[in-house]
């Protein structure tokens, strides 16, 4: 029997509750959250368990939610793909604002190496046990993490592009 979203959800909840939570399906893809101390275990299980078989790491990226509560301001999103049953999942790991630190999965998927470096580069999310964590696209001397929401793209003093005229406020509207 081929793998379905329900089976994945059931198996993971049985195995890892309360470390996994908030299962939901968006546009056919199963997404769920994993507590940060269990992220490596859960992804390892997804990769190595014969019933799961998520052999391919599609994507790793970070997201910044400055409006969320203190302990979930950063998020690392993993997209995993099982090529045998052709099913994808989205794994989210929320991290606190003051110490955004996640477990590196380079030992499971070498493809994560540069993607974790990219996430570090843009969000300052530190991946523990990464073989060579340093900036990748920005220069080494840079002192900020540019994709965080507190860094505006354009000069905020500009008046010719004032969005309040269209009934909007705030930097990212």
């Amino acid at each position: 029997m081929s793998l379905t979203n329900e089976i994945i959800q059931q198996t993971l909840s049985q195995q890892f509750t309360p470390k996994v939570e908030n299962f939901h399906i968006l546009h056919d893809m199963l997404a769920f959250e994993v507590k940060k101390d269990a992220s490596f275990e859960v992804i390892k299980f997804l990769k190595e368990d014969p019933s799961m078989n998520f052999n391919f790491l599609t994507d790793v990226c970070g997201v910044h939610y400055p409006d969320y509560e203190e302990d979930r301001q950063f998020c690392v999103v993993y997209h995993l793909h099982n090529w045998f049953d052709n099913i994808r999942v989205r794994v989210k790991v929320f991290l606190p604002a003051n110490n955004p630190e996640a477990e590196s999965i380079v030992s499971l998927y070498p493809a994560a190496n540069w993607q974790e470096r990219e996430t570090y580069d843009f969000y300052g999310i530190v991946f523990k046990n990464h073989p060579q964590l340093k900036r990748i696209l920005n220069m080494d001397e840079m002192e900020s993490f540019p994709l965080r929401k507190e860094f505006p793209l354009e000069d905020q003093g500009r008046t010719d592009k004032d969005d309040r005229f269209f009934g909007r406020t705030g930097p990212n509207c």
Partner: protein
Amino acid sequence: MSDLLLVPEKRFEKQIKETKEKDGVELSILNLGPTHPATHGIFQNILLMDGEKIIDGEGTVGYIHRAFEKIAENRPFYQINVLTDRLNYCSSPINNTGWWMTVEKMLGIEIPKRVQYMRVIIMELARIADHIICSSVMGVDTGALTGFLYVMQYREKIYEIYEEICGARLTTNMGRIGGFERDWSETAWRKIDEFLAEFPAVWTEFENMLSRNRIFMDRTIGAGAIDADMAMGYGFTGPNLRAAGVDYDLRVAQPYCSYEDFEFDIPVGQNGDCYDRFCVRNAEVWESMKIIRQALEKMPAEGGFHADVPDYYLPPKEDVYNNMEALIYHFKIVMGEIPVPNTEVYHAVEGGNGELGFYLITNGSRVPYRLHFRRPCFIYYQAYNEIVKGRSLSDAIITLSSMNVIAGELDC
């Protein structure tokens, strides 16, 4: 924040010193790039060499990083299309269509069959243009410039088709949410037919020149080989993965845009070396032509050139000038005032280099909350130094061109 900053170490200098002290072997550092004619783009590789042999390497990328993901967080959906052009600029229409399909998936828009077939045609033309460059540049890097100049004329013919469809050649900015900006002209259809009639003979000649050429085979067979397990581990997709013998192609695995309606094969290689990558790309050009022919044959007469979505699709210009409602819609769409749900979507298309994915998070505002591009180049290029380790410098050059690393996509 400063406590999160990490200081990189200079490990090669350490290694040179160690081997000199231990075995008396003096290694050297070679700086390949960032602007070297053989790298075909701006990326640097610092290689630790023992004579002609590469002991270790470290890539530096980011020379043309333009912060597209940051810009995208501040631009309405229509304005992001021009950013996708500049990812893999050898096959912009694939990127454009991938982006529109992501937005359409997010909005839940149904696309008419005719538009889907038109998109398939333009994407396959773009794939041919992409593979023409990569395969012929491999010839250039092994010393055969003729083939490159010969097939480049036919890339020009593809660009003329783009020009006919959208007005631009390289950075096409093609399409709209829901379809195309205008119906394709008679000239466009005629040029597609002409291309399909002329190109097979040219491509056969190009293949004849290189694929059984002794010099070319000696240079490429066994060079830059990667096995299937390692390729999958490193996140390879596209022709580079298929050259290693894995038949993963998104057009078949997760068909989008009606690819399930067409019959075509997935060419695979065996050894994952430069020669296999070359052969897989060449074979894919034939498959692409096969798909275009089928799409032309099955093309429905009805269906128009865009979906009926007035909230998202710009109204025709003559209406904008003469009709109040059309003017309002025009203004709203241009200003990005379109209804957007609060959701997350991942959509991927088979680009020229592999799985090109768009991960879009929206929060109901006129701009994405977060947009991440899954660039195939960026992900597989990290294996480059692993592949060339232990090989000679000339192998490293040909490996780089056979992997088709496009700087725009690499650096985003």
